[in-house]
């Protein structure tokens, strides 16, 4: 349709001959290398600054990076890994998973049904207002001081961002799309799977991201009470026994755990929300 003989009211839609191909600007290895350098630059500078200030001041409470690294290697590449780190991580992931499943399921029910929402909302608002750490004394009485207490604390805090975001996402399902699904006779299960959950997925993922950060905090806090193992417990114990480099090594490990979990989450999110990124980019005209 390139000949100018055909004038139309609207500009003709010029369809490219092939669907757009994904861009490939650089070989993979080079990209990874560049990205790594990019990521590591600022941490390297910060560690350097810290090393400089500790070397000049020499305070007992701020050991040099070398001392912290030694403590780190000695501590965490030992059986403490099995005693403290792994159980902590298992509790963290269990709590997070339970909170995610509960939050999404309840959120879908609340988002779909106005009646349920009206009934439950006041109660939920109240429960949400309770800071999870204050539940610890109660839970110690109710379920004891074992793993289930700690998992419950994590769940009780993490469930809210997932729940509220899911409700919001489900309520925001496009009415035209919902009509389309009804017209084409999509059954309830299909509708949940391909319409409700997928179109709410940006909000659900945002809720899960918040929940993950909360889960780490609550894991540590729950281990600071009436506990005999775990990362939170270990850090408090080091502090009380003035094992300062070890205390620092615990903090560094926590930071790394958080970083790794967020990175893994980011990968999953990138896959799940690929369409959403594309859609937003298309709307912005990129």
């Amino acid at each position, binding site marked *: 349709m390139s000949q100018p003989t055909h004038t139309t009211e609207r500009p003709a839609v010029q369809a490219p001959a092939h669907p757009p191909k994904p861009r490939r600007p650089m070989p993979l290895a080079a990209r990874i290398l560049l990205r790594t350098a990019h990521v590591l630059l600022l941490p390297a500078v910060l560690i350097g600054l810290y090393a400089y200030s500790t070397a000049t001041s020499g305070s007992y409470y701020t050991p040099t990076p070398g001392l912290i690294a030694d403590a780190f290697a000695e501590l965490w590449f030992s059986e403490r890994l099995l005693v403290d780190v792994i159980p902590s991580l298992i509790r963290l992931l269990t709590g997070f998973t339970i909170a995610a499943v509960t939050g999404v399921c309840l959120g879908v029910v609340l988002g779909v049904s106005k009646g349920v929402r009206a009934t439950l909302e006041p109660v939920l608002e109240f429960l949400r207002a309770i800071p999870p750490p204050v539940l610890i004394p109660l839970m110690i009485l109710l379920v004891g001081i074992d793993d289930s207490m700690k998992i419950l604390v994590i769940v009780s805090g993490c469930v809210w961002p997932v729940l509220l975001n899911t409700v919001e996402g489900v309520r925001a399902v496009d009415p035209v799309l919902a009509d389309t699904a009804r017209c084409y006779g999509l059954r309830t299960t299909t509708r949940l799977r391909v319409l409700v959950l997928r179109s709410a997925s940006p909000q659900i993922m945002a809720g899960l991201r918040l929940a993950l950060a909360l889960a780490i905090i609550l894991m540590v806090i729950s281990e600071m009470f009436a506990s005999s193992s775990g990362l939170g417990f270990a850090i408090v114990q080091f502090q009380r026994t003035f094992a300062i480099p070890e205390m620092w090594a615990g903090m560094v490990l926590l930071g790394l755990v958080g970083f790794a979990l967020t990175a893994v989450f980011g990968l999953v999110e990138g896959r799940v929300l690929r*369409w959403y990124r594309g859609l937003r980019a298309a709307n912005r005209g990129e």
Partner: protein
Amino acid sequence: MLKVTALQKIYNGGASAVEAVRDLTFELAEGELVCLVGPSGCGKTTLLKCIAGLMPPTSGTVELAGDSVTAPPPDMAVVFQEYGRSLFAWMSVRANVELPLKEKKLPKERRRELVAQSLEAVGLTAFADSYPWQLSGGMQQRVAIARAVAYEPKVLLMDEPFAAVDAQTRADLEDLIRNIWQRLGVTVLFVTHDIDEAVYLGERVLVLSSSPTVVQDDITVDLPAERDQLTTRQDERFTELRARVYAQIQQAKNSAAPAAAH
């Protein structure tokens, strides 16, 4: 086949009530292709949603093959005016077209065949694996049309389905709709604001008045069944019919003017 009786729809949104449709009565015979024209805002989309069972009318009834429509009936496909919002952004074009067929539990072979045929018919074969947001508005509209066509419905409702495509594609799609209609014997209700299109496509043209809406005129298009973009549009009868529809629409607009003035 499709019978609309004394249909009225009042929207009770918030403080004020809007009477979108006052009193519509008409009937479509099985296998008929009817075009619906009317001024913007006269309630064409409202009517279509009531027919599709997506919205209960305030009063009056919709009957499909003798049964009262209260929920979306099976074997009915709808192409929505907001075509872009009616596609699943997280699914490829192919998956969008295939989804209703999967839900109908068609065997895989048949599904593949229908998807390929319908995408071919709307000229989007090369874009089967693209996502809707990678396509232009007109292409998205064609995906929605392909989905409706692949569904092989008995009744096809289309709400200004060619609004976003260029003139050439529009002509091709018009012929496609007539072709499918002749081949499959579907009953089609086609909303358009384009008078030429209504006359070219339809066996009948229903003209709606402006709000409060009634059927202003019901014009039978007595053009030969085989239509051609060039010869049909030059036909003397075509010009006559076109003029009549045009006059009716003008009248519909003007008659509403005093009502809208106060």
